[in-house]
C-alpha cells in the first residue's frame, strides 16, 4: 500500500535556528497537509496545500512558517527562528480529490518528525 514518508524522523535544533521538515506524499494525491501534535495533546491542523498554493491555514501558521512543493514529489515545511514551544511531532498528510483521477478522500498520514528545540 502506498504511504506518506517523512524525513527526518527526529530533528534536534537550537532555538533560533531554521528547520526544514520533508515529506513525500502519495504519488497520485493532490491535497497536502501539515499537522502538529504537542506532547500529550491532540493533533492540530496547520496548513493545507493544493494546486501549488495554500488553500487554508490555521492561526498557528504565522509568518514563522512556510510550505513549498519544490518538485513533483516533495512537500516541505520550513520553520524560521524556532522557539521552545515549536517542539512537537509534525505530521504530513495527503489525500486525493475524492473523485475522478484519485478517488481517495481519506487523509493518509506519515510517521511524523519529532522536532525538539533546545
Amino acid at each position, binding site marked *: 500500500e502506498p504511504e506518506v514518508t517523512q524525513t527526518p524522523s527526529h530533528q534536534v535544533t537550537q532555538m533560533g535556528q531554521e528547520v526544514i521538515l520533508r515529506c513525500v506524499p502519495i504519488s497520485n494525491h493532490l491535497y497536502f497537509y501539515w499537522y502538529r501534535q504537542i506532547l500529550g495533546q491532540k493533533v492540530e491542523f496547520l496548513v493545507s496545500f493544493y494546486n501549488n498554493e495554500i488553500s487554508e491555514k490555521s492561526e498557528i501558521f504565522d509568518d514563522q512558517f512556510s510550505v513549498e512543493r519544490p518538485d513533483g514529489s516533495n512537500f516541505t515545511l520550513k520553520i524560521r527562528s524556532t522557539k521552545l514551544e515549536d517542539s512537537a511531532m509534525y505530521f504530513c498528510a495527503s489525500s486525493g480529490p475524492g473523485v475522478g483521477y484519485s478517488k481517495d478522500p*481519506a*487523509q493518509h498520514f506519515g510517521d511524523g518528525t519529532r522536532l525538539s528545540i533546545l
Partner: protein
Amino acid sequence: GIQVEQSPPDLILQEGANSTLRCNFSDSVNNLQWFHQNPWGQLINLFYIPSGTKQNGRLSATTVATERYSLLYISSSQTTDSGVYFCAVSFNDYKLSFGAGTTVTVRA
C-alpha cells in the same frame, strides 16, 4: 470550527474484553476518520467512515451522521491494541479537526 468530543478519555481493559469508543461532533461532516496512535507516535488509519458501518478484523465502526456521532468497537482486545484512538472530522474544507482521544490500555 467543528467541535469533536471523545469518550471515555481513558479505558483500561483486560485482554480479550470488548469495548466501545464514542465520538460526538458538533456539525455536519463529510469526512470522518478513526486513527490509532501507537506508542511510537505513529498515526495509523483505521477507518474512513463519514456514514454507515465498516469492519476490519476485530475492529468495526459505525457513523450515524444525522445524529452526529460515531462509534468504534474493539472486540477480543489484545495488548497491541493499546494506544490512543483519535476521531477526526471535516466538512468541505478538508482540514481535519481532531478530538482529544481515548487512551486505551489493554492488560495481559
